């Protein structure tokens, strides 16, 4: 059981986390954050393996991984 927490205000919508997730768990939100970016969000909970790849590539340290 693991999950990621994405800080919507920190996320700049670069999308780098999306292709790296082996489980395809991340998508972009339709909403804008206060800086005008569409932040990433976890699409499906539960399947996350806490592999950390999304954390590794995120240039804005916007992702936390919980287990």
């Amino acid at each position, binding site marked *: 059981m693991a999950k990621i927490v994405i800080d919507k205000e920190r996320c*700049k*919508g670069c*999308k780098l986390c999306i292709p790296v997730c082996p489980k395809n768990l991340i998508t972009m939100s339709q909403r804008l954050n206060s800086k005008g970016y569409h932040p990433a969000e976890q699409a499906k909970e539960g399947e996350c393996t*806490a592999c*950390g*790849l999304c954390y*590794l590539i995120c240039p804005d340290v916007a992702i*936390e991984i919980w*287990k």
Partner: protein
Amino acid sequence: MKKILGRPESMQDVSTIYCPGCGHGIVHRLVCEVIDELGIREKTIAVAPVGCAVLAYQYWKFDTTEAAHGRPPAVATGIKRILPDRIVFTYQGDGDLAAIGTAETVHAANRGENITTIFVNNAVYGMTGGQMAPTTLIGQKTLTTPSGRDPKLAGYPIKISEALAQLDGTTYIERVAVNSPKNILKAKKAIKKAFQVQLENRGFSLVEVLSMCPTAWWVSPEEALKWVEERMLPEFPLGVIKDKVTSNK
């Protein structure tokens, strides 16, 4: 549930001004993780450059200063000579380190100053809006090479790490990249090793990090990852360039 990965202790809890997809954010984090793991946050003094990372002092939770453009190695020398038991590192872009700061880099390296340099090579001057860097690739379009870098007029992507490796004062030099999780892990290992070299008083260590600048490459952050892979790696091969500690390289 417990947080198993998140913002390192050494990193301030603020947003950066970097563009979306900018490699500086990743490199900043790696440096902080390494400093945390080595437990040296309270004895580290960082020298920030003039370049996009000019605001690093806002992002790092340890003592920082900011050198004039190109002069971080000289500033770090001054610091380290007075406080040899502190950990001193410079963080520099390709313009800062390999253009205006060439002499300071070469000579701090040649003196074997016991400092660490994190050299962020993004093949462009990010901060000033995207001009040619000494590491700009052949054919790469920038504000100052509008038809692409022509080596006949503007020279070649500079191999400064290879050149530094020729100097007796350098102990450890490695080139890494932050364009994929795998490379990021290797980059972290190299950065850690560089700091360890300093902790063990073994002299000058440098990690050249190939890093994304989607803005001045005029590509999306995702394309920038590929750009590193396809365009930078052939010119700047990854790997250990010199290691006086563990091998005879």
